[in-house]
Every structure is written in C-alpha cells, then in structure tokens.
C-alpha cells in the first residue's frame, strides 16, 4: 500500500495510475486517478463520512458502488453549475472536480441538527400527521418552515442553468440495455447478424460486474473480454454504443427514454456541446440486461459509515484498487458474500472474520476460499459502534453469545435482487422466486422486451452469457434476421445458494439500536412496525405512511427488505405481500434534459414580421403577440410615454396616412370546385355569392355556437379564395378547416394551405392612403385585367385584386379597413416585405406618413367598435357582439344549430356596447365590472365587464368596449365601472360601440 493513498492498492484495478486527477470534497484537496468514480476516489483517500441523513442528520458513508446508492449524495460543481443530490458512486472523476456534502450545518463532522436524532422517538412513521396537527395555523408559519430547513437534501444554485441540453431520437432493430455479460453477448450476436443495434449502459466503462469480479471469461480476465467485445461491436458499424447512458423508462410502442451524460465528466464543457442528451429510442425489440443489485440486511446501527454492501467492497477493491477498510468483516447469508473475503485476502487486505447466518454444513465448501480467516456460522450482527465511522461490530455467534470484534469496514450481503424496474413501467408485476429469494420479471413484461441474465434471476456469468445469446437469437428470428452461430465463452457457473435474512431482530436486553431499511428517507424496521400497528396493511399505504422508497433513490436498496419485514408482521408470504409499483424514471432525470433546447427563448422562438429590421431601425418598441414580435409603438424624440407616441400615430393616420405591418394575421389559401360551398358551411355568412374581386368580412362559430374567429374572405377567382384569421388563431383555424373538410365533408373538392409566412401584408390607412398607393401601384394594363386604377369607381370599398407595384412586383391589393379610415391592405411576397415597407414610407413622405404599432391599431379599432380577442373570448355569440345579422338564415354552418339554444338567445345575455366616462377626465380600465349606481360592488350585482379600454385621441376622452346585460336597450343609461384591483370606481354612460364615423363614410370615400 502506498503511503500517499493509504487505502489504494499499489497495483491492479481498471484505473490509469499515469493520470492523477485532483479534486476537492468539502474544501479538502484529494487525488484520484483516471478511471475512478468520486466514490472510489473518496474510498481510496480513506474518506468514510460523506453525508448526513435526510431526517435525523445521521452520519452516513458510501453504501454501494452504483446507481442504487442511497447515502453518498453530494453537490457537484460550483455557482450556476452546482448540481445537488448527485450520487458519488456514479460521478466519473475529472481534474478539478469540486464536491460538497449535503444537509449538514455547520459542517459534516459537527452537525447541530444531529440533535434531531435524539428526538427520533417523536419523528417516527407518520410524524407529520401526528406531531404538527395543532393548531392548524401553525403549519404554514411555524412547522413547515422549520421542517423544510431541517430536512432535505442538496440545494439548488438558484441561478439559471448555463449548460445546453439536447434531445435525440434513435431507431434500431434491437436495443440492449446494460453492457454486462448478458448484454454484451446479446449485442454481439445481433451485431454479427447485421441488425441495427443500440447498446446503452449507465457506466462509463462497459462490462458491468465483469469489471468488478476476479474471474475469467473465455480464458481472459473478465474485464479484458468485455473490452474485446466492445472493440468488435465498434468495428461492425451497425452498433451505436451509448455509454454513460441510463435507459430510465419504457413507453408505448417500443419507445424507450434514455439519458446520456455526454459531458458530465468534464470540468468545462466544450462550446456548443450539450451537457446531457435525452434519447428517445424506438426499438423493434429490446433486451433488458440490467443486472442485479445487492441488498443490505437490517440490524442495529447498519447505517454507520463503514458498513457497505459486500459487492461494493469487492468493486472498490477489484475495479478501483481501493480498500474500503483496513480490516473488514463480512456478514452474509449467501455464497456470494464470501467472494468479498476471498478477493480482499487476494489483494493482501485483512479480513477480520466471515459471519454467515447459515449453518456450518451449508458453508463448508466455501471455507477454503478465505484461508485462515475466522469464520462464524449461524452468526447475526446485532449492533455496530464508532461515532463517525465504524470501529467495532457486535454479533451473536452460533451459541447465542455476544461477540465484539473491531473492524473499520463491514461488508454486508443480504443476497441479490434482479433489477426488474423497467419490466414494470407498463404496469407489469414482478413475481417472487423462492430459489433466489427475490422478485423476477413476471409474464406481463412490456411488449417486445426480453429479460436476460441477472435481471431475470440468472446469477452465474455462464448463465447470463447463455441467456444473452439465446434471447438475441429469439429477437433476431422474430425480425427475420438469420442468427449467426456465436459460441458461448467459458465462464464461472457457480450455483447461487441463499438462506435469506432480512432483519436481525434485536435480542431482548441486547438492543443494538435502530435497524435501517431506507437509508435515504431514514426509515427503520420500527417505523414499518408502527405503520403496521396503526393499520397500514397494504404495501402502498405502508410506503406512503413511512415514506419508505419515496426518496430520490426510490428505495432501490430498501424496498425488498421492507416488504419482507412487512410480510413477517402480517403473517403473509412476500409473494402475497406484493410490491409497490415501479414507475419511470429509473434514476433521476433533470428537468433541463426533458426541456432540451426548448428552454428560454428556445421554448417559444419569436416570429418576426417581414419589416422587423426596418422597424428596429426606427427604434420601435416591440411586444409579443402570440409567437410574434410586433412593433407596439414608434417613439419619436420628445415623446415621453407610449401614450404620446400612440396618440400621435392615431391622429396622423386619421388626419393623413399611416402604415402598419399586419403580416402576422393568418392567411389561408382555399381553392377548388367546391371552395365556395365549403366556406358557406364554415362561415355564418354566405361566401358563395361573393363576386370575384370582392372581399367580405366573415365570422365563424365553434360547433357549440360561440364565436371562434373572424377575418376577411377575398374571392380571387371563381374557385380561389384567400381567407384571413386573427393572429393568435391562425393555427387553430387551419386545423379546424382541415377537420371540417376531412371529417365532415371529404366529398367536397377543396384544397387549402396556410400562406401566412409566404406573404408580407401592410395596412395603409388614412385619407391620403389612396394617394400613396397610386404612387406605388403600376399603371396601365398588360392585357391581364390589371388597370392599376384605384379610383372609388374602379376599386371601391371591399374590392380586391392583383396589381403590380414598383415596376412589376406582383402584389394583391385589398380595400379593407380595420381603422375605419379609407384604407388598403397591400400584400407582396414575403421576401419583398422589407423593401415594400421602405417603398411605402418613401412614397408617403410627402403626406407625412407614419408607421403605427399595435397600440395605435388597438385604439383605432376600439374607436370603431371592432371586436378582437378580448371580445371573442369563447363565451360570446354572434348576437352578443352585435353581429346577429351576419348569421345567414338561408343555410347551415358550423355552430348554427347550437347557437339557437335557449341560453344562447336569452335576452338577459351580456352584449357588446360602448362606454364613456361621465366625467371626461376619468380613465377607464379593461377588466372593470359594471355595477348599478348606488349598489354594492359584489358579485351578485355584477352586470358585466369592460373588455377593452383606451384613451381616444380622436375624441379627447377615454372610451371602452364591454359586455353588459341587455346592453342594446340601455344606451344612455349610467352605471359604474368598478375595478377593485386598481381601486377605481368610475361612472360611465352606455353608448354605441361605434365611436367614430358610425355610418362608415370615411372608409367608403
């Protein structure tokens, strides 16, 4: 043993001694080697105490060497990269790694809250429900904050995650989960057959237990054989090897979720590289070779640092050349535990004793393995001692006599559990197998998933290799591949003999302290007994009452021993007791990995209007409208608020001319022999009577009779229409049209496509809009009917048609108006959008044209009483919005039948009207509720609410639109607009919603 690393063996192991890596744990500097995990490096440095427990702040050490670890949870990284609750046993060591222990204050060695442990009689099963019940008000203010501070694991950095995560999809013939002997052999068979294979393994080194045991496969050291197989798999070219990848869930249709730790083993992640990658693997067949997991035995003080699973002690010694203790005692109930003693002795370490719960006859054949190490049969460990780490082990020998031996490591083997979790993700139930005293996969495993090796209860290496070969052959035959003949290499084929023991019951008067089942959630055998006494007989109830198995490790080491304890209490067998349900994920997956690139702005990328760059040059202030980023107003020098800018934009537009990019409106091109008939069935009003070259305002209902959306319908040809939708409903209306056509009326000859992104569209509004357009639209005919004549006679209100602009650019012109002014909408191909906007501004310069944003657009539509989203709120009918005349009596349309329901035509309904303050200097707010004058502002007196409100620069006072009961009959009546949120109570007069030019003379001018 070297002096530098007193626990590190001088030779052996799968570590690269030529590459020393330095790291820190709780501020202290240590060194490890390439190939270490954080846990193995800590073991090699003699660090025993690595964390404090969740509830009692008990000192805890490393229990396992794999992903089932309940104790050794640490924070990795610093600052925004701090990652809490990481299992030290799965962290690949890298240069500069910074790790910290969790749940301790002020330090790991001296934890003030360890006082909780003294109060443990009060913190047992169900303590939340019992202790903190009265008075009720204390829960939120006193109990919960105290508990939250005391309990818990690691803490989040509270900063935004600086790393990138990504998602990927893979398709394959065969997915092999786990690269132990069964998995490697299965992958090899499939690879040689030419199948597309994905081999996923959570470790950074393929091999599974082959890397951890002193044995040979095909006359090679087992790890060497594994490396050789991996080399061959790589060379075939049809195998994707995903190392550091945990398959965490099984989903429908042969879909598997997997998390690849792409760069978690680097201190600095290369630019543009993801930290983790979430795989969606679609596999025709899968072989689960997830192996086994050793289980602990419950006895007094079995949570003391230094008490470790026997297989983990063996893994640290064999794979990492690290000794968990200077003097080790082995406590086992099965043959497998003896291997630990054998391997430690072979490594030159001291084995204090082998304690087997079984009789001398049963272990006689094993004795030669451990040389002259003392062996105690029918032995049961009752307690341990040592304040922050194990110092001595007390057990009862075959004669019932208490013996105490000193040791700093106790290697425990309670037998092995097949890792069946993934077989249960589709609600399969594992079944109890007496031979191995463990649960094996049942017959209801997910479709297409076969289970091989230890995961299926086959614990010998030879058995795993055989089953991997056979099941791969079976899967390949199913898929029509010719399975090659692949020999099964020689390997150990030792029988697995176990005489299960779950809990060493404390002998009377020799109580060894609490016996832990769930280390992470601090659940003891006594807690399970209390739950039983209090009537929690179902495993699911016991789980929730004691919280056993509900920590981040999901009880991987705890569940089966707890079931056994419970079975004993109820007098039932373990098989009858059953298991709780395993659900994905198998190990924790960061939310960031599920989000992938869809985080931050990537969650909802902006859509930009074609003139966005131009607007940016003008210093526009932008606002999100659905996914779109649209100019809200265009500030000018000397303007101090958005109101200054918006008021100016409105006044300039109404006085002369303004322009606005309205490309975000949904545009759907509808064509076909039956296009007109189809639109008749969609819209409340008739579109088939629309003349070519004309536009009509259209209203569509949902089938339940409420208004869905509005827009314009332009007839570009006999069989060709262009319909527009509101910005936010564009996708929804497209889906609706597709639904109505394909589901209701597939016999109609009609085709449609969204062209929202294909066209840039500009609203040019105001008395001078025609003059601006006359400068842009090309004159003269070319025999194609495009006269370019924009006079009122040639191109009246609601006309539309093709034109060319700026010397030949094809365009469409619509004489429609949202502002209430003489107005046009000009549409060109999206790529002309930017230059079109610049050309419009140039042409309008002599008329002092202004660009206007969404605020001005909104003010002008309120002044005209046009409903938008706040009025089309999903609860209003056409009649509510004053649009009853738009529902044709002569034909059916979607929603018409239901729009005539009693409740929909109730005269008491709230309808859309206008509101103006009685005192003209008052402001109005959207969201205010209407209450009768002199009445109390309570729900019972609520008559409706203000849906939109603004200051009207055209009128010089505030105006609003709102829904109020029987509004049409109440013009001139005064009510109050009460806004309790903003503390306003304004007397308003009900009026027509058309505040400006109610006869529409301007837009027809």
């Amino acid at each position, binding site marked *: 043993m070297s002096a530098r690393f007193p626990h590190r063996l001088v030779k052996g192991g799968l570590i690269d001694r030529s590459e020393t890596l330095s790291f820190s744990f709780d501020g202290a500097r240590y060194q490890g080697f390439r190939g270490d995990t954080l846990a193995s490096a800590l073991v090699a440095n003699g660090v025993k105490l690595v964390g404090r427990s969740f509830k009692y702040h008990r000192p805890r050490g490393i229990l396992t060497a794999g992903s089932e670890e309940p104790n050794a949870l640490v924070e990795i990284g610093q600052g925004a990269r701090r990652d809490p609750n990481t299992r030290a046993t799965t962290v690949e060591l890298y240069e500069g790694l910074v790790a910290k222990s969790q749940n301790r204050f002020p330090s790991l060695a001296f934890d003030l809250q360890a006082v909780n442990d003294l109060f443990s009689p009060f913190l047992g099963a169900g303590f939340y429900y019992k202790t903190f019940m009265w008075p009720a008000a204390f829960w939120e203010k006193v109990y919960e904050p105290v508990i939250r501070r005391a309990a818990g694991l690691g803490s989040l950095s509270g900063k935004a995650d600086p790393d990138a995560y990504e998602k990927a999809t893979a398709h394959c013939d065969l997915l092999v989960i786990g690269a132990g002997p069964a998995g490697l052999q299965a992958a090899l068979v499939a690879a040689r057959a030419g199948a597309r294979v994905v081999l996923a393994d959570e470790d950074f080194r393929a091999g599974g237990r082959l890397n951890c045991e002193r044995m040979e496969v095909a006359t090679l050291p087992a790890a060497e054989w594994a490396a050789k197989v991996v080399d061959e798999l790589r060379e075939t070219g049809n195998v994707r090897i995903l190392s550091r990848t945990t398959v965490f869930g099984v989903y429908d249709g042969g879909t598997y979720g997997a998390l690849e730790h792409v760069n978690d083993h680097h201190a600095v992640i290369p630019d543009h590289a993801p930290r983790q990658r979430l795989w969606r693997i679609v596999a025709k067949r899968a072989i689960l070779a997830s192996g086994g997991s050793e289980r602990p035995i419950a006895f007094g003080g079995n949570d003391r640092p230094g008490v470790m699973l026997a297989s983990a002690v063996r893994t640290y010694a064999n794979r990492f050349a690290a000794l968990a203790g200077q003097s080790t005692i082995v406590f086992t109930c099965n043959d497998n535990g003896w291997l630990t003693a054998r391997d430690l002795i072979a490594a030159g370490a001291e084995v204090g004793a082998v304690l087997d719960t079984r009789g001398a006859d049963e272990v006689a054949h094993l004795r030669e393995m451990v040389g002259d190490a003392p062996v105690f049969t029918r032995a049961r460990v009752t307690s341990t001692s040592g304040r922050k780490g194990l110092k001595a082990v007390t057990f009862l020998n075959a004669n019932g006599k208490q013996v105490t031996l000193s040791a700093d490591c106790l290697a425990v083997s309670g037998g092995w559990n097949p890792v069946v979790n993934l077989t249960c993700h589709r609600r399969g139930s594992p079944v109890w197998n007496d031979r191995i005293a463990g649960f094996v996969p049942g017959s209801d495993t997910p479709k297409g998933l076969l289970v091989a090796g230890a995961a299926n209860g086959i614990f010998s290496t030879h058995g795993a290799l055989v089953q991997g070969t056979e099941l791969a052959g079976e899967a390949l035959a199913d898929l029509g591949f010719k399975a090659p003949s692949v020999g099964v290499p020689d390997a150990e084929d030792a029988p697995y003999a176990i005489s299960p023991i779950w809990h060493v019951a404390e002998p009377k008067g020799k109580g060894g302290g609490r016996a832990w089942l769930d280390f992470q959630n601090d659940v003891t055998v006594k807690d399970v007994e209390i739950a039983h006494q209090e009537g929690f007989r179902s495993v699911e109830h016991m789980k929730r009452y004691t919280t056993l198995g509900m920590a981040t490790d999901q009880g991987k080491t705890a569940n089966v021993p707890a079931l056994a304890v419970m079975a004993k209490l109820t007098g039932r067998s373990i098989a009858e007791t059953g298991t709780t349900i395993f659900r994905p994920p198998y190990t924790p997956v960061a939310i960031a990995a599920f989000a992938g690139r869809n985080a931050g702005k990537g969650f909802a990328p902006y859509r930009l209007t074609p003139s966005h760059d131009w607007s940016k040059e003008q210093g526009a202030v932008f606002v999100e409208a659905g996914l779109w980023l649209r100019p809200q107003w265009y500030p000018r020098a000397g303007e101090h608020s958005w109101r200054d800018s918006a008021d100016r934009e409105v006044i300039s537009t109404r006085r002369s001319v303004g322009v606005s990019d309205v490309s975000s409106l949904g545009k759907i091109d509808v064509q076909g022999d039956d296009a007109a008939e189809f639109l008749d069935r969609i819209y409340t009003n008739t579109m088939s009577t629309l003349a070519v070259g004309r536009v009509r305002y259209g209203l569509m209902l949902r089938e*339940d009779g409420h208004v869905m959306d509005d827009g314009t319908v332009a007839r570009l040809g006999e069989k060709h229409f262009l319909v527009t939708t509101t910005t936010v409903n564009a996708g929804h209306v497209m*889906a609706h049209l597709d639904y109505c*056509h394909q589901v209701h009326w*597939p016999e109609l000859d009609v085709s449609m496509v969204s062209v929202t992104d294909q066209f840039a569209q500009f609203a040019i509004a105001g008395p001078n809009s025609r003059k601006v357009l006359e400068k842009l639209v090309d004159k003269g005919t070319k025999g194609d009917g495009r006269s370019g004549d924009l006079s009122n006679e040639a191109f009246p209100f609601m006309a539309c048609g093709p034109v060319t602009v700026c010397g030949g650019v094809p365009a469409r012109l619509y004489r429609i108006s949202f502002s209430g002014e003489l107005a046009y909408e000009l549409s060109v191909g999206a790529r002309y959008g930017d230059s079109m906007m610049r050309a419009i501004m140039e042409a309008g310069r002599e008329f002092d044209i202004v660009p206007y944003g969404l605020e001005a657009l909104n003010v002008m539509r309120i002044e005209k009483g046009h409903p938008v989203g706040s009025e089309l709120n999903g609860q209003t009918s056409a009649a509510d919005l004053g649009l009853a005349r738009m529902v044709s009596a002569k034909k059916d349309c979607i929603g018409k039948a239901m729009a005539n329901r009693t409740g929909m035509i109730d005269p008491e309904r709230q309808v859309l009207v206008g509101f103006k303050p009685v005192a003209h200097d008052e402001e109005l707010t959207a969201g205010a509720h209407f209450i009768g004058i002199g009445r109390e502002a309570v729900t019972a007196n609520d008559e409706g609410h203000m849906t939109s409100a603004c200051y009207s620069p055209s009128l010089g006072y505030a105006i609003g639109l709102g829904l109020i009961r029987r509004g049409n009959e109440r013009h001139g009546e005064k009510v109050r607009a009460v806004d309790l949120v903003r503390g306003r109570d304004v007397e308003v007069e009900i009026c027509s919603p058309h505040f400006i030019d109610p006869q529409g003379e301007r837009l027809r001018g």
Partner: protein
Amino acid sequence: MRLPCPLCGERDSGEFVYRGDATVVRPDPGAPGARGAFHEFVHLRDNPAGWHKEHWYHEGGCRSWIVVERNTLTHEVRGAVTAAAHTLARSAGGAKAEQEPEA
C-alpha cells in the same frame, strides 16, 4: 406512443394533436330532432375502457386528420385510416362503415 399515419407511416405521437372520439357523426341540421342530436354530438362522449376510435391530427406532418383505433387501457394501436376515407366509407353504406380500419 407511435401512431401509424396512413400517408406518412409510423410516427411519434408528438407529431400529432389529439382531438377525441371519432365515433360521433355530425348530425343533419335539417333532420327532425336535430337539436337533441347536436347536443349529443357536441357534448356527450362515451369513455370506453378498451378499444376506441379517436381523431388525431398530423399537424407536424401531412396535416391529415386520421381515425386511430387505440386501446385506452394498454395504449396498443391497432391501425389507422384517414378521416376522409373513414367518412366516405361510412356514407357509402352501413356495412362498409363498420369495417375495421387498416394499418
């Protein structure tokens, strides 16, 4: 979950939008009792535990509405046809309409 789009082949369910029951048929608005029929069509749905026909929209693909036969207990998918073919088959005659969708 994977859905077999009749036009695009088997695709991940993330490409589709779920709508619901595909067994309801829009009533004839001119027929007697249309009001009650529309009430049922809009509001009333069976919630079978087992095989069910559902409308899915391949919005992230070919924009087809499809009728998927799915087992609501197991998520097993037996097959799918385009909604258009499904509707046309139904209007072509009662017997044909009840045919199982093809994968």
